C-alpha cells in the first residue's frame, strides 16, 4: 500500500515538473510551448495523438489561455482535481519566479533590453514554428483539414474576424463532413 502511494506521488511529481519546465519557455503567449507539450504528453503516455488534438481544440474554445488550459486538462485526466490544480499552478509559476528574481538580478547584471527582447523574439519564433509544424505535419495527408487550416490562416491575417468564430464554424463544419 505504502509503496503504491509512493509510486503514484512520484509519477504525479514527474508530470508537474514537466509542466513547470515547459512554463519557463512560454514567451510570447502560449503557442510557443504547445508543440513541446505534444511531444512530452505523447512520449510519457498522458495523451495519444488523437487525444492531444482534442485537448487543443477544447483548450482553445474554453475561456483562458490555451497553455494553462492544456495543463489543467492533462492534470485532471491523470489525477483528478489535485492533478489539475498542481499542473495549473506549476505552469504559471515561472513568470512569477522570473519577475521577482529579475528585480534582484537587474541590480548585478546590465543587459541591453532592446537586444535581449529582439533575441527572445527570435527564440520564440523558433518555438512557435515548431508548434505549427508539429500540429501540421501529421495531418498533411488529410486534405480537408489542410483546406480548413489554410482558409483560417488567410482569414486570420487578412480580416479582423475573431478567431473563436472561425474555430467554432470549422467545428460545426467538421461535425457534418468529418464525423
Amino acid at each position, binding site marked *: 500500500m505504502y509503496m503504491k502511494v509512493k509510486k503514484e506521488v512520484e509519477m504525479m511529481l514527474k508530470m508537474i515538473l514537466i509542466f513547470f519546465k515547459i512554463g519557463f519557455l512560454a514567451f510570447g503567449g*502560449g503557442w510557443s510551448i504547445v508543440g513541446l507539450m505534444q511531444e512530452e504528453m505523447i512520449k510519457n503516455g498522458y495523451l495519444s495523438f488523437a487525444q492531444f488534438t482534442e485537448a487543443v481544440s477544447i483548450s*482553445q474554445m474554453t*475561456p483562458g489561455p490555451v497553455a494553462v488550459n492544456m495543463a489543467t486538462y492533462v492534470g485532471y485526466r491523470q489525477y483528478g482535481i489535485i492533478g489539475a490544480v498542481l499542473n495549473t499552478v506549476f505552469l504559471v509559476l515561472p513568470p512569477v519566479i522570473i519577475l521577482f528574481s529579475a528585480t534582484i538580478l537587474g541590480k548585478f547584471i546590465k543587459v541591453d533590453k532592446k537586444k535581449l527582447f529582439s533575441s527572445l523574439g527570435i527564440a520564440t519564433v523558433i518555438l*512557435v514554428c515548431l508548434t505549427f509544424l508539429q500540429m501540421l505535419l501529421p*495531418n498533411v495527408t488529410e486534405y480537408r483539414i489542410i483546406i480548413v*487550416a489554410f482558409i483560417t490562416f488567410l482569414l486570420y*491575417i487578412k480580416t479582423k474576424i475573431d478567431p473563436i468564430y472561425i*474555430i467554432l464554424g470549422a*467545428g460545426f463544419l467538421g461535425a457534418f463532413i*468529418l464525423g
Partner: protein
Amino acid sequence: MIFNLFWMFLKVSALTLGGGYAMVPVMDKQLQSRGIMIEKDFYEILTIAQSLPGPIAFNVALLCGKKVAGIKGAFASTLGVLIPPFFAIVLAASIIKKYSDNVYVKGFLKGSYGAVIGMVGGVLYKMASKQEWNLFKVIMCIAGVLILLANKDIVVMVFLLVIILNYVYESKKGSRNDA
C-alpha cells in the same frame, strides 16, 4: 480593493473567449472605468508582461495586482484569472469523457483542430513579420527548428543558445556601426 481586483479579473476571464490577446483590451477598459489604474501604467505593465514567459493574461493580472495592492493584490488577481478557465476545463473534460466516441463530437473537434492549426500559422506569420530579419537570424531559425524537430530534449539549451548568439551578434554589429 483586493476583492475588487479579484472580482474584476474573474469576470473578464470568465466572459472572454479566445485566449490572452482577446482579454487584454477588456482588462484595460475595466481597470480604467473602475479607476483602478490609468492607461499609461497599463501600457507599461503590458510591455513587461510580454517580456515574461507565461500566458499574457496571467502576467497582466500578476503585474496589475502587484502594482495596485502588493503581493496580496497579485495573488487575488491571478486567482481571479485562473478560476474560470479551471472550472470550464474540468467541466469540458468530464463531458468529453462521456461523449468522446460520438461521431459528431469527434468531427467537431477535428474540424476545429484544423482551424486552430491555421490560426497558429497566422500567429507565427504575425510574430515573424514583427522581427527585423537578417541572414544570421534566418539561418539560426531554420537550424533551430530542424534541430528541435529531430530532438526536443535539448530545447532549453537551444533556446538559450539562440538568445546568447543573437545578443552577441547584435552587440558586435552595433559596435561596428558605431566605429
